[in-house]
């Protein structure tokens, strides 16, 4: 039940992505797509009354169609037995604090932040793991930023535990976490300016 609830809550993030990026023209989305968003908005009302997060009200009721050639962006359920996590959410970096707030409201705790260096497609990826104490539901948030000047907004003001995880990811990959309180090296010596886990790191 929690998985469905959080899936709906996170998919609400995708509505205003389409809104901000392109003019919301109602496309002829596939039937399942319409039915899916209808279910999403219905669940949203239920969830709105239940937790009454003011942030949900601010979202306009009329839902623009998320139109994407690839499968619709949004939380994808993964097979736990094979992969080890339940929900895989691909987000643009600026959506992260919002997603973290939604997860904190549902009492998810932060497990870890992993940096991955995709050197072939010139990108650095940050993978956020969240899990829940009462009901097993591991949510994975992914963001990608380009390798030249990687920058991701910090969530350490929402999850204070992320403070160290972000400093460590900055140590190893050089991802700058925007307005992080003190982004000094955590595991490397204070004056370290190299980022060892990058694929092109030479000692």
């Amino acid at each position: 039940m929690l998985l469905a609830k959080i899936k709906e809550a996170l998919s609400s993030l995708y509505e205003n992505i389409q809104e901000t990026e392109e003019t919301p023209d109602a496309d002829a989305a596939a039937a399942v797509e319409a039915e899916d968003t209808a279910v999403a908005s219905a669940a949203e009302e239920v969830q709105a009354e239940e937790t009454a997060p003011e942030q949900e009200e601010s979202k306009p009721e009329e839902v623009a169609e998320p139109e994407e050639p690839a499968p619709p962006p949004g939380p994808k359920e993964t097979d736990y037995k094979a992969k080890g996590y339940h929900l895989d959410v691909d987000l643009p970096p600026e959506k992260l604090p919002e997603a973290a707030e939604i997860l904190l409201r549902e009492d998810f705790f932060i497990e870890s932040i992993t940096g991955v260096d995709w050197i072939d497609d010139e990108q650095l990826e940050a993978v956020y793991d969240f899990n829940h104490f009462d009901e097993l539901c591991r949510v994975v948030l992914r963001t990608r930023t380009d390798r030249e000047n990687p920058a991701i907004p910090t969530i350490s003001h929402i999850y204070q535990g992320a403070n160290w995880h972000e400093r460590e990811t900055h140590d190893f990959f050089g991802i700058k976490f925007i307005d992080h309180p003190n982004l000094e090296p955590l595991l490397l010596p204070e004056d370290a300016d190299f980022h060892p886990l990058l694929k092109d790191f030479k000692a």
Partner: protein
Amino acid sequence: MNGLLQQDVNKETFTINLGPQHPATHGVLRVKLVMDGEYIVEAEPVLGYIHRMHEKMGENRTWAKFLPNCGRMDYLSAMSYNHGYVAAVERAAAIEVPERAEYLRVITVEMNRISSHLLWFGAFVLDLGGFTPLLYAFDDRELILDLLESVTGSRLTYCYFRFGGVYNDIDDAFIAGTREFIKRQRKRMPMYDALVTKNIILIKRLKEIGHISKDMAIRYGATGPVARGSGINYDVRKNEPYSVYPEFDFDVPVYEEGDSMARYMVRMDEIEQSMRIIEQALDKLPEGEIKPKKAIKLVKPEKGDYYHAVEAARGSFGVRLVSDGKNQAYRLKLRSPTYSNLSLYGEATKGMLLPDALALMGSLDLVIPEIDR
């Protein structure tokens, strides 16, 4: 303080280092303490003094070659780290593990958990000033180390698990020795209870000291006995069942107070629970293979990333591996429980007395190479 001596604001604070070489940190953790007399204004742990590049080594070694590293991260519960890494690779490469091997894994992990809790018990009471419990606890722990050494070959940094099974089978001497140890330990625990737990000094030092609330555990991601001491019923063996744990009936001790005494009691009760698991595992030990016919050297999981968490003695140890199909990890992230447990130290010790902050640090049960990786 109190009405009489109002704190005058412009008194300077005093910065001292609870430095890398300090008996209470049990390793090389440094805490920069900004003190106002005996009170801590601000405590900031500084890490990295034993950073040994495990994750970098994960990327330039084959899956099998990384096995010895698992035992050297958290050398007190090295078996759980073996289990976490091997189970993650088995999940990624879909390797089957025979039934008997799963039982051996559970038995050795639980024995290693008892030896880790015993060492924590000795070291924690040593931090609070009592020296004798350390000798008793080490005496019991040596018995476990003998048993585990007879099966795995090493005392501390085990490398006993292989992909798809375990390295060595246990013999009757091991089973008899384990039952003998459990009988002896069940007689020793009431003595520890009387000698230490009911000791008024220990109670005065731990009750209502170092309070960690449930909300703080959520925001910092604290797991294991630290979370169970604050009323969170989260044990990876129960919440996220793996291996053959569902077949054993054991309960998870949870205390509501959230102070150092609660975390102390959680670990003392867990020793009893681990003994129950070992007994059930020994009774129901099936016959059969303990490792695949042909040793698996070439592991080629398909592309994508996988996550697997196990319940180490200090919390949920997670392994996130990203593989690109080669016999080598593309990225190996090791989520260590004490890293998150310690991150709440700054907020938990604001305005605390220094001796209480040390009692809190002892109750977090730190192993520093696991934090620095």
